[in-house]
């Protein structure tokens, strides 16, 4: 299904802190843009001025079509630089220029695959939406979230049975989601990952060792977000050129990309 990409003013319903430097932004609009696939993203223009200049991409962490045709989407983000700082200052009642839904999302698992959703830090976002979509389709899944320490765990509803991992062992499993998966998953799995570049590289390696399928959401700086500028290039695994994170991804089969490290 081709979902129309639109540019629209999204109303800001909420923009609340959920962890130190993390926020959840809830947006609403009336019509136009289609229902996003989990893994797809929006670009937001965080300031009407020229600095910072570029739109910022954010994956959907939730989406619902509510009564009277109003659409409601959420994203979670980490305040990292000027763009996300300005985003954190947008108040409910205001609006923000949005384009979406963009990119290619997560493919559904095969009937005999166990879905393991591995989120590193703020990479949790698109997996929250995907976990919900899988559950709605009657597909079991396990979400594995990794953060550095218990104090960084977000106050946000996680799917039932979610596994928490902390690097320092202050809560849940001591170690990374990759450590947890390699110790606890034995059957035929389909790994869905979103997180730092080293984490995606580890997931790709692990999936290769276990002959699992892995669908990983890549992060790269983007200018246009629609596939025109070729700025968000990621090297192909076969060395024959590049893929565009925005239009060919952001979700890739782990064997398509050279994840580095």
């Amino acid at each position, binding site marked *: 299904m081709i979902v129309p990409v639109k540019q629209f003013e999204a109303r800001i319903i909420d923009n609340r802190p959920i962890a130190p430097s993390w926020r959840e932004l809830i947006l609403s609009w009336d019509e136009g843009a289609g229902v996003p696939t989990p893994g797809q993203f929006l670009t937001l223009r965080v300031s009407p001025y*020229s*600095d910072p200049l570029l*739109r910022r991409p954010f994956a959907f962490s939730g989406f619902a079509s509510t009564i009277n045709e109003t659409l409601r989407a959420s994203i979670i983000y980490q305040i990292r630089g000027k763009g996300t700082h300005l985003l954190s200052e947008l108040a409910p009642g205001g609006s923000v220029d949005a384009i979406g839904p963009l990119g290619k999302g997560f493919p559904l698992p095969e009937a005999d695959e166990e879905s393991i959703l591995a989120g590193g830090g703020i990479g949790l976002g698109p997996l929250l939406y995907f976990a919900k979509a899988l559950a709605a389709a009657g597909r079991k899944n396990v979400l594995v979230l990794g953060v550095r320490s218990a104090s960084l765990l977000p106050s946000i509803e996680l799917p039932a049975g979610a596994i928490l991992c902390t690097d320092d062992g202050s809560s849940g499993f001591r170690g990374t989601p990759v450590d947890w998966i390699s110790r606890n998953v034995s059957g035929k799995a389909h790994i869905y990952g979103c997180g730092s570049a080293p984490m995606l590289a580890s997931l790709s390696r692990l999936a290769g060792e276990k002959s699992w399928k892995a669908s990983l959401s890549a992060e790269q700086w983007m200018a*246009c977000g629609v596939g025109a500028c070729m700025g968000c*290039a990621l090297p192909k695994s076969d060395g024959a050129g590049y893929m565009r994170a925005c239009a060919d991804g952001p979700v890739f089969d782990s064997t398509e990309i050279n994840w580095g490290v």
Partner: protein
Amino acid sequence: MLANPVGLASGTFGYGSEYESLVDVDSIGALYTKAVTIENRPGNRAPRIVETPSGMLNSIGLANPGVEAFIADKLPELRKRRCAIIVNVAGSTEGEYLEVVRRIEKAAGPRTAGGTGVDGYEINVSCPNVRHGGLAFGTDPIQIERLTRSLRGETERPLIVKLTPNVADIGSIAVAAEAGGADAVSCINTLVGMVIDVDACKTSLAMGTGGLSGPAVRPVGVACCYKANRAVKIPVIGLGGISCAQDALQYLLAGARAVQVGTGTFVDPSCVSKVLAGIESWMEARGVARVEDIAARLRSV
């Protein structure tokens, strides 16, 4: 040749289809395609872009599928467009530029009123992101004149030479393009820039340097247009940091006869239609009938 003075700059709009649902391509004056080279070019190593104050650096490296794939896959779509299609051509030798134009001429057929998918060429002699060709041509008036003259022999379609601001005297480069038979010059391509990540002690772009675009370069572009326009009789097309009508009007007052929106489309795809509407209302409010009459309104201080 142009229905209106606002175009979409090469490299920022692909071959038109990427922005299909966001920009009404038929309402614009001209679509300048992503550069076409003789061979398929995968482009430069990543990271290729980095944001800068009121701008961005890119080091894409003329990534494109090559002229044969352009003819097979892109040209049929471009033929359906109602706006003017200007094919941007790049090469690393004079022979490559000539061969690209030759093959496109053969595929597009003779110049007619429209519908061939090719209404002109923009000759990219100003890309800062490739090792050979590009900028090396664009900074040497002798090479510019020779290349333009050779290309003139290949096509009756309008030839626009895209100039670099990375020169001491853009006027002399514009004069060389005019002498070689160019129908117009466009300026500016990007300015060479570099950003260094001081935590990592690495350049932010894999290639080190890149081309600066966006509002940060606008004053440079306006000055280049002003200088180029005083040096030549052929039309000057202005670009560099245009995202609203006020920006475009600076170029038109400086002597440009048309403009291109580039990085501005990344930031706000809807801006291109606003640029056109704003130019029209400015002209109407001041009783200026034609775009080419705007420059006469520039007064000395």
